[in-house]
């Protein structure tokens, strides 16, 4: 297993380098010139040229590629044009927020997806099975940014102003303005409250997908001979389903971890923008708009690397859940 992991990690190196190359050329060969964004009235041509030289943009593209790659390998991702500080500092500020949001969404999606899918399979063709199917299909079909707006409308705006519910959720930012004056418990509650709507917006679509897979997988497993064996042992239905069937039904679901993480990162671009969440998704969008090449490249590179890592984790999880899979 350790050997396998090492080999997979080594194999990931050319993959990540390939990603870096594609990211670099996609950004640098795109039309447009970053210096145009720094122009202000009254700037002389001389100053513009000097700016180009300062950013290294006067060099031909292959030279810039070699320089960028060389610097990146030493951990230097360059200097953000728009934030006016090293790219890594920018990432250090925003990446953890995105990871927090993504992890929450992934956790919620898998927990409820597996639960709902299992419930549906056990109650196949019942009214609740059909009802869940309709609701899930709805969430599966709706774009996450629309869901986000609906959630803001209902759980934030209407809940607070129209229905006057005791609980409503903030629709913007990670913390309230009075965050610094709250007690520790209050701060935790405040952060959780701010997490709810963006997490739901990201998670609902994924939950629907996972539940649909899980229902199918569970239906398949529940007909297996070993489930009948488990019943013939005298085990209660709860143990039969949640111990004997569930672990087998989870196998195909693990694939979804690798498949859904790119979907999730894609989703953060919209969701972070809508909820003013200070994360990488929103930062990359802004960086693209301001032609902040180093930041766009570094952000894309990190997202891509995390997708590679997620797939590696999924493969390792396979071996953990299924003893028949042994990596040599």
């Amino acid at each position, binding site marked *: 297993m350790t050997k396998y992991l090492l080999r997979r990690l080594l194999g990931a190196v050319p993959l990540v380098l390939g990603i870096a190359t594609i990211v670099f050329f996609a950004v640098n060969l795109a039309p447009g010139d970053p210096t145009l964004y720094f122009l202000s009235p009254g700037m002389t041509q001389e100053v513009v040229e000097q700016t180009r030289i300062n950013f290294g943009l006067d060099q031909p593209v292959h030279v810039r590629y070699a320089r960028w790659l060389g610097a990146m390998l030493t951990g230097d991702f360059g200097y953000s044009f728009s934030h006016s500080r090293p790219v890594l500092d920018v990432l250090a500020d925003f990446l953890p927020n995105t990871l927090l949001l993504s992890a929450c969404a992934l956790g919620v999606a898998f927990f409820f997806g597996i639960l709902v899918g299992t419930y549906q399979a056990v109650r196949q063709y019942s009214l609740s099975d059909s009802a869940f199917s309709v609701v899930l299909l709805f969430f599966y079909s709706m774009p996450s940014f629309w869901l986000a707006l609906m959630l803001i409308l209902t759980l934030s705006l209407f809940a607070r102003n129209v229905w006057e519910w005791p609980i409503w959720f903030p629709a913007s930012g990670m913390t309230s303005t009075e965050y610094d004056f709250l007690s520790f418990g209050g701060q935790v509650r405040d952060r959780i409250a701010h997490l709810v709507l963006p997490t739901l917006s990201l998670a609902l679509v994924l939950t629907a997908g996972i539940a649909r897979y899980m229902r199918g997988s569970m239906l398949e497993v529940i007909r297996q*001979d070993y489930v*009948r*064996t*488990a*019943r*013939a*042992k*005298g*085990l209660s239905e709860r143990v039969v389903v949640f111990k004997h069937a569930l672990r087998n039904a989870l196998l195909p679901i693990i694939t979804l971890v690798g498949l859904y993480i790119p979907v999730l990162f894609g989703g953060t671009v919209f969701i972070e923008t809508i909820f003013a969440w200070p994360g990488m998704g929103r930062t990359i969008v802004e960086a693209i708009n301001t032609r902040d090449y180093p930041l766009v490249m570094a952000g894309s590179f990190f997202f891509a690397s995390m997708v590679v890592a997620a797939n590696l984790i999924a493969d390792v999880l396979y071996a953990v859940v*299924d003893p028949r899979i042994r990596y040599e």
Partner: protein
Amino acid sequence: MTQHEAAGAAKSAAKSAAKSAASSAATAAANSAAPSAAQSAARSAANSAAQSTEVEPLLAVRDLRAWFLTDQGVAKAVDGISFAVREGETLGIVGESGCGKTVTSLAILGLLPNPPARLMDGSSVSFRGQELVGAEEKRLRALRGNEISMIFQEPMSSLNPVFTVGDQIAETLRLHRRMDRKAAHGEAVRLLDEVGIPEPGRRVDEYPHQLSGGMRQRVMIAMAIACAPKLLIADEPTTALDVTIQAQILELLAELRRAHGMAVMLITHDLGVVAEVCDRVIVMYAGQIVESGTVEDIFVRPAHPYTRGLLASLPSVGTPGRRLASIPGTVPSPLHWPEGCRFRARCPSAGEGCERAQELVALGDGRAARCWRVGT
């Protein structure tokens, strides 16, 4: 229950009582004093009431009807069967695929999925005097794997691939015997040894995919006997195995039956298996019992044309080169059992009188056959 069946059951019960009495007394004396069959039958009728508590069978199935209510109609998979399993005996249930053998065994354990399956009113399964049809799920669970256990046809798919065989055996012990993890693990090793698995200490921590089919069936058996059940239902336990392994597994089952004094209900379509290990045999066809009797009765004096057909389709070593006989046609669909005698369309001796629905006709000594011709 029909009158014939009732008479047959009473007689067979009396016969077994007479047998056990004979074995405890001087056998020779009992033999010399053995009354004629007619006298025996008359006496058994008189004695049966007095003996009924004493010789109450381990398992009594009466008028069991397991129907599947499907979109296509009602499939009468098991349609009114009655039989008994006595303590320590091996009862064979024989028949082609689709005749209701497996449904019968699942119905006994209450493991038929409902819906679509339903046990119809009047169905009764009584285990040690306890009615199981309509019993609480909790009570059934306490019996399953504990007093009645079951092994299945497919050892390749009957074990859970993600748990070690030791865990799967220990699970039963922890559930019914309330053993702790360590004791259950130790007992699992002992059980693996008992069912003839070499290096049980190592095998216990292996996963099913690391074992061969025969080994897995041994694991299934170890799991089934873990709590020393009174009744073991073996549903085609050797069908999926190599011939050489088949004999070993049958031998093992017979050995364990003797050692633990449990009754075995052996479901099979293989008459050779029946001849080897069974005391009594039930032949099923189209959801009904068509013949029942001792192994000798069935093999030497088969009464029902279907039983004769099954026996004729056995290859015989004595007459090589003979074209193998077969019963023409296939088992009809349980959605539409034929009117009258259900075997009529495939029966070589079908004729007038077969258009009536057939009753089980008692033939004495616990033998019975569902054919009007046997009585005449």
